[in-house]
């Protein structure tokens, strides 16, 4: 995920996280880089194609894994969950945000939006 984010820097990257869920613990073991489909400048925006997400979900099922969440990067920005992130999120998945500062990985946070997309809870992230 970090390599993907560094590759697309100074643009945002996005992708899917696959793994297993055991109770409250979500274990990511694989990531799938997806294309940032945002039509404008991608330095501060990303957009996932639902078809790509559908394919990622299928890939997970085929391998007996779960689609756990979505990751994206914030180039030269902290790994907060912006209002744009929140409004265009969904409560089903964890959202990992990677802060990439000057091309290098800085820190990451994981967020779980509520069902009305009015707030996102910060999840403990071990990496």
């Amino acid at each position, binding site marked *: 995920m970090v390599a993907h984010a560094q590759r697309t820097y100074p643009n945002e990257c996005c992708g899917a996280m696959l793994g297993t869920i055991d109770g409250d613990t979500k274990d990511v073991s694989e990531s799938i880089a997806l294309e940032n489909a945002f039509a404008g400048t991608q*330095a501060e925006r990303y957009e996932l194609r*639902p078809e790509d*997400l559908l394919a990622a979900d299928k890939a997970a099922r085929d391998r007996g894994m779960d689609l756990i969440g*979505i990751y994206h990067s914030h180039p030269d920005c*902290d790994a907060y969950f912006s209002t*744009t992130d929140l409004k265009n999120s969904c409560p*089903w998945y964890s*959202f990992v945000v990677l802060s990439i500062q000057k091309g290098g990985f800085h820190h990451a946070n994981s967020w779980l939006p509520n069902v009305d997309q009015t*707030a996102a809870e910060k999840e403990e992230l071990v990496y």
Partner: protein
Amino acid sequence: MAKVLIPTPLRQFTGKQDSVTVPGGTVREVLDALTSQHPDLRKQIFTDEGKLRSFVNVYLNDEDIRYLNKDATPTAEADTLSLVPSIAGGSTVAAPPEEVTLSKDEILRYSRHLIIPEVGIDGQKKLKAAKVLLVGTGGLGAPLGLYLAAAGIGKIGLVDFDVVDFTNLQRQVIHSTKDVGRNKIDSAAEKMLAINPHLQIVKHEVALSSENALEILKDYDYVVDGTDNFPTRYLVNDACVLLGKPNVYGSIFRFEGQSTVFATEGGPCYRCLYPEPPPPGLVPSCAEGGVLGILPGTIGLIQATETVKLILGIGEPLIGRLLLYDALGMRFRELKLRKNPECPICGEHRTITKLIDYHQFCGVPQQTAQAPVEEKKVTEGEIEVTEVKEKLDRGDKFVLVDVREPHEHQICNIPAAVLIPLGQVPQRLGELDPEADIVIHCKSGMRSAKACGILKSAGFKHVRNMKGGILAWSDRVDPSVPKY
């Protein structure tokens, strides 16, 4: 009949099944059957009104139903339905425009910013490119103006029409003793430019109103509310919501303050927190209730910090969180703020689409930039301070009642007066003779007018209000009495 694939996180609602086969001839019928079999799923997929949630896309096999026949798309037994969320996002902090450059002088000046990785040259350029409007150059505006100027904001607009007064100096540190009597906006601009000559200041020497607010605010990226009254606070909020500008809010009273960021995209606004203003007079202003002089420094600098964070796009902004500060306990607390879906200005069914009359809304008389209107003649039930003085000198038989608080009485008093604080008047009526000639005073005449009303409705016959209170007494009778 169709098979619905259940996304992993939703399997908790389907008894761990990763797919569920349910009856139905159309997509809608299948989804209805699914959510009636597994009612907990319903809230995840549908809104309370029964519409698909905005982020839910439904795929029939590998086709988005929006491009088929939407939820009336027919389903066959071999079909598979998938629920796919639409996901997007972004940091949404614009990179600095390319034309912004930092001179050698500026690089030296901002070097302690430039060596923080989170700010750096790009961050400093964002600050320089930023346009911030400060509403008010008083208690909150003073630290805001000084620090935002020093931090390197490129353009700062100031809104104020007031004049520096001696009573401002205890907290409004942007103004000096020599500035008393001077326009606040000129005094503030001079100090800010002395700190940072690279700064561009725009002076708006007007009372912000429904007529001019949108025109003034539209040229700025961020608005910082340093006002001290409800009409302007609602006006700033509404204008920010209508224009889509973040509103960095702060308020202070005695030893307590609050701060938050309103009107960001998707975030709550001031009306989500307070749909209606408090009744007039319930919440005293600094002039009425007093304020610890240092308090606006603390709160104003929280606002300044949030403003700079928003511009730089770093950290966790104070959006959806109301920070409460208690100086006496020296504690910070935080309340979660939610966007109110029924908010009249930023909710889904907005009823306010333009600026309204905020003085009427808040039930308070209008403050204007014009000179105060000439004082009215003494009305019935009022008495001039000079006449009270004459009565005292003649030795007239009458009772002078001071309805201020004991700590105000300590600051200054008229020795002949009896002290009965306004709040105790109803209980202490027995101490006064209903037939006596009574004159009541307070600081400026407001509270004594209320006390006169209480006495009159209790049957007191000869009650008069000393016009202008002890302030007028100091002006026109005894200049040795200090004003406060």
